[in-house]
């Protein structure tokens, strides 16, 4: 529900250039469709269907889609990802239109802007109907992708993560210069922006990063900033992909307070949100 103002319908897009250690949407990191495997359901039903003899079980996770099409009658095997063409997507989205007074559509991910060109038509169709469009993004994308859709976007919800170039490359596998460049581009366009900081002592609340955040917000005064503690809501999705669950990444109260004071000092409005 933390996806912008009012009641919104959110489209989660597959594919992300980053690999944040705390990611809660691991099913949206890869660009292609992928199988998932729910071990609990399999264990409860294993052997009771004739199909079980031919089932790859957990090996399905190593298979590529759509090379093979194993199916489980109990729903232990399934697929993350579904393709829609723009018209079909907009038709489905518009069913929720009566709820959007003050709200609208949010594109999230993964990294929504990685599919910016594919989204263009859907956004245009929505804009023709005067629908408010928000994009949740890390902005670690080629600027051309941002520019492709910037005219249609009313609100950017921009994650601000690790701002040191080396650590950003090392931990997130992303080029922070792209981020800086894209923030400048979005701000120059006068777009409404809400910055969001995922908070944890280990990565984003280090002394060094707090200093970099201070520098950053001196350049971007007057914007809304939302802080949130990292959560483990994605744990079952990690498990379904055969990955180890993400660790817990705590954020100590004092460092959070320090970050709040940094942001407020730069005349930004700050709030702490929960998922």
């Amino acid at each position, binding site marked *: *529900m933390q996806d912008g103002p*009012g*009641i919104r*319908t959110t489209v989660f897009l597959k594919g992300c250039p980053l690999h944040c250690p705390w990611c809660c949407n691991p099913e949206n990191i890869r660009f292609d469709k992928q199988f998932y495997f*729910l071990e609990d*359901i399999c264990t409860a*039903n294993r052997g*009771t*269907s*004739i*199909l079980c003899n031919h089932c790859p079980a957990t090996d399905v996770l190593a298979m590529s889609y759509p090379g093979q099409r194993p199916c489980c*009658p*109990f*729903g232990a095997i399934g697929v993350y990802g579904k393709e829609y063409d723009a018209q079909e997507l907009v038709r489905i989205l518009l*069913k*929720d239109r*009566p*709820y959007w*007074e*003050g*709200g609208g559509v949010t594109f999230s991910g993964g990294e929504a802007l990685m599919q910016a060109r594919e989204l263009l038509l859907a956004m245009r169709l929505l804009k023709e109907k005067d629908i408010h469009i928000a994009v949740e993004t890390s902005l670690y994308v080629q600027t051309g992708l941002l520019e492709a859709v910037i005219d249609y976007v009313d609100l950017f919800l921009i994650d601000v993560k690790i701002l040191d170039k080396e650590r950003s490359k090392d931990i997130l596998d992303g080029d922070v210069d792209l981020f800086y460049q894209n923030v400048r581009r979005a701000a120059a366009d006068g777009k409404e922006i809400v910055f969001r900081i995922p908070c944890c002592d280990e990565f984003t609340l280090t002394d060094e990063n707090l200093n970099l955040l201070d520098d950053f917000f001196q350049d971007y005064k007057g914007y809304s900033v939302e802080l949130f503690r990292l959560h483990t809501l994605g744990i079952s999705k990690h498990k379904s992909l055969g990955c180890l669950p993400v660790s817990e990444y705590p954020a100590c109260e004092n460092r959070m307070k320090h970050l709040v004071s940094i942001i407020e000092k730069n005349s930004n409005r700050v709030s702490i949100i*929960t*998922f």
Partner: protein
Amino acid sequence: MQTIVELFDSLCHDLSISVDDSEFVYFIDFQHIMDAARGHTFSNLTPNYRILLENGLISLKYREEDCTNKFCHDYNSVIDSLCILISRICLELDRKKPCNYETKLEWFRNMIDKPAAGFFEAIQRILFLNQIMWQTNHRLLGLGTLDTLLDPFYRSDTAQGKLSKEDVAGALQSFCRILHQDFKYKSNMLLGDTGQIIVLGKSDEKGNYLYNDLTILFIEAIEKLNLPDPKILLRVNKNTPREVLRSAVRCISTGVGAPLLANDDVIVPQLVKYGVPMQDALDYTVSACWEPLICGKDSSLNNLTTLNFMRSLDNLIMRDQLSRITSFEDFKKRYLKYLSWNLNAVKRVVGRHRFQYDPVLSVFMEGCFEKRKDVSHGGAVYNDVGITTVALSNTVNALLNIKEYVFERKLLSLVDVKTMLVTNFKGKEDWIPQLKAGDIRYGHDEDEVISLTNEIIRFVTEETKDFTTYLGGRMKFGLSAPSYIDAAKVFPASFDGRKRGEPFHVHISNDKAAYTEVVNFAAALDYGDNRFNGNVVDLMVTPVFIENNFDKFVDFVFFSIKVGFFQMQMNVISSEKLIAAKENPEAYPNLIVRVWGFSAYFRDLPVEYKDVLIERALRNEHKVS
């Protein structure tokens, strides 16, 4: 054998009177519940409290020269007996001198020959009439539109400085506590099923929303008391202020299961189209749970029996020449044929129903005095009947499965389907999850499922529209399904993936679908003609979801009203808490949940009801598929 009137007179002479230091006088003598057992006692309705608020009892009587039939004499006798009971209560108050007895004495003396004079006195009269109805074995008794009824007294007393808002808040809490105290006796089939529903808020002819201080004060009283009973229903429309909705959502978020929301923008037009004059339609309340009823003028028994949509499908699969059915259209036609036969059985049950002569209720039912007729002879202004239905969701899903697997993908024959159902899916358990899955199911806002559902319910209208009862009443039905467990207990497996004995789905619900999707689906159903006998969307919500998104949830309710749900109720609770409360009931003695159309203590529910709630909560939280 004593006549009803004689029985009632003996009752008024004999029943034990108990008065104590409570704020109001209220007692039911369980040793003297009147039971004449000469037909079915009226129940599931709301007597006309307004009659007693606006009149002294004596003024309700026929003049001697106007007593032209037996009913008029019986009617007058009932009032005489009530006056005797009141005089006995006065004597007892005078003898025992409980707290504030002089005021209470005045309230009761006034009841003989004066209209109610103040807010507290009005509450006492509502309690007295309610008590009389219970004492005479009427059950599932509503309280009516109390914020509207009490508002003139509230305004007059507060304007004169006799009352503060705090006094009123306290009195409303006492009122609710008193009504709750005998809830075990008052409960019908399940503990908590008392029918004690207070209706709040209303619309005017132009669609403006009407509410007052008492609307909010009642909601706040229910929120503070945390009792499952009495319950509240809040009428809403698209102009309902956010302040009222916020108050309602705050109350709902405590988990108390109330208020149920009823959408005037959908309900009032349906009542008018059905032939109810606008002024009466605007005054609707509901029977014990959801079924719209015209307050104080309507003796309709709205839950007389239940139509099980799945019975017809089971009959078809078990009895028909399946090999002759070659297309889904044929199959659907055969289904509707069996449905019409089942409806004939329902009509026989309804047609045989006779009510007991009831001059006590007739005194407090508008229309009887004017027509000089008892309610059991059609005295009330409205005398329709209503039935509930069950398993529409399962039936629609089963039909969609048959369409897909038999006629489109041709993976099964109808005989294969029959074999699966007869054997309770033995050796074919792997089909169950497939049959339960799917994106086009009851509760999804997909054209195919909406049109199939509407086709079935419109067919029921075609088959019932010409039916009349011995009182000339018509038959209504709705899609709220209170018997989703009882009707399913011995029912064979069904092709929606339900095994023998497993419960049917609850009301209009789909715990896997988004809330907006379920509301969109419900709003697309056709509640016209006689299809308005309660159509409640039932949602499971986690407390943390509302807590983190309170304003957005209020928005959701607001926009859902505009989209056009008929009625909506919610259980705000987590699966974790329900599981813990099932395992360790002593640790959760006051945990309240919403069941059917009422709230109940979780500890009091039979285990199968607990299991349904737990499973639904788990599904809502995506912890099971």
